[in-house]
């Protein structure tokens, strides 16, 4: 039997959206998702909340890690369209550390329409400042250090590469255990020689 999703879809998705908006407006600050839905076992409720808020029949999702059960659940609650390849996806749900397409393959928009680009929702275990790179840009009052558990230097190099032709690029959310962090394409890695925080 399919499990329920948000207990109050209108208000729960509004609350989730506001958390996402804040997360993207002030990147790399861990925020709390105030409403977590019931979700299939393999899909973290934090990611499920974000997907329920973003998806409908107008967007194409690429989510190689979705189990058949989770796929049916998400399909029932959002009526999303599956992307045929990662290149076509508007939204991706990826588990950090699992096998995934290279970020360079994702939609980065066009110069006239940079908004026609992918948004990646990463499922993560948590966040740490330890060994994290330092970010700056719009939304940073001061530079900040943070990264999701499981991200390494190679990951940040790949991220930097795919956002180097700003305003083209991809936007990301990291979510798990009731928390979320946003990282828009406008954020920049700060040179390590400069002080952080």
């Amino acid at each position, binding site marked *: 039997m399919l499990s329920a999703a948000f207990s109050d*879809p*209108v*208000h729960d*998705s*509004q*609350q989730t*959206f*506001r958390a*996402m*908006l*804040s997360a*993207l*407006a*002030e990147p790399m600050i861990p925020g709390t998702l105030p409403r977590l839905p019931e979700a299939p076992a393999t899909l973290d409720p934090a990611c499920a909340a974000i997907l329920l*808020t*973003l998806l*409908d029949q*107008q*967007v194409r999702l690429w989510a190689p890690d979705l189990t058949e059960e989770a796929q049916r659940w998400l399909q029932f609650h959002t009526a999303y369209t599956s992307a045929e390849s990662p290149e076509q996806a508007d939204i991706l749900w990826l588990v950090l550390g699992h096998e995934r397409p290279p970020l360079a393959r994702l939609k980065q928009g066009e*110069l*006239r*329409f*940079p*908004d026609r*680009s992918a*948004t990646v929702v990463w499922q993560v275990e948590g966040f740490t400042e330890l060994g994290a790179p330092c970010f700056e*840009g*719009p*939304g*940073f*009052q001061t530079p900040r250090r943070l990264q999701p558990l499981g991200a390494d230097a190679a990951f940040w190099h790949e991220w930097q590469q795919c956002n180097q032709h*700003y*305003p083209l690029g991809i*936007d990301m959310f990291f979510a798990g255990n009731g928390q979320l962090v946003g990282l*828009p*394409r*406008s954020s920049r890695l700060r040179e390590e020689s400069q002080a952080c925080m």
Partner: protein
Amino acid sequence: MKIEFNFAFLDENTKRMIRRGLLKAVAIPGYQVPFGSREMPLPYGWGTGGIQVTASVIGRDDCLKVIDQGADDTTNAVNIRSFFQKVTGVATTTSTARASLIQTRHRIPETPLRPGQIMVFQVPEPEPLRTLEASEQETRTLHAYQDYGLMHVKLYEDIARHGHIATSYDYPVMVNGRYLASPSPIPKFDNPKLHHSPALLLFGAGREKRLHAIPPWTRVESLAFDDHPFEVQGWEAPCSLCGSRDSYLDEIVTDNAGSRLYVCSDTDYCTSRREEA
């Protein structure tokens, strides 16, 4: 018969579409995201873009303030506020400090905004280059290549003709050093408040079907020349009601002899100053 609305009037599909647009707008500060603007129960030009943004953002625990030219008690502000009272039942206020969400037509409040607040601007024409270039195809290309020479020529012509930059409202800004954007028809007096604003600024244009955004703590520069730096308006007299010398003043003609009075355009700011005194 009691008419039931979905919370905040818009259907959930429309809200989702606008929300996805707003997220892209925040991710690309100053870039105009196209969106499927809906027909609203008031005509274009009355703030339909701002209303759709507010409707997509607002939640039950928000406290909404609506201003029109700084005033909480003008037709547009009163109507939009009562519209949201009716379709959401949220708390409303006239106090800038108490509001979590502020929809505005053509002003930024004098009371400094705080982190966590969201300002929603009603935008008649989101394209700063539109009066200089009528074609959307063309302006989109100019933005793509960051080709903003036209706007500098326009400001230069102002100087050649008037001796100074005569643009006094809707004064063009560069957002995050990349996109030329319209701050909506706020007086240029308010432009400095856009720079490193602690609050998130969202812009909605209903007729033109565009959204754009300025995230908090974002670099926003008003265009200028080295020998003609950007300057804001100033007044010789203080506000006749509260005595403020720092606020944006409206000129009111008081009789047939042409007597004039200058008063704060921000009614909440002016009232609270008089109450404190």
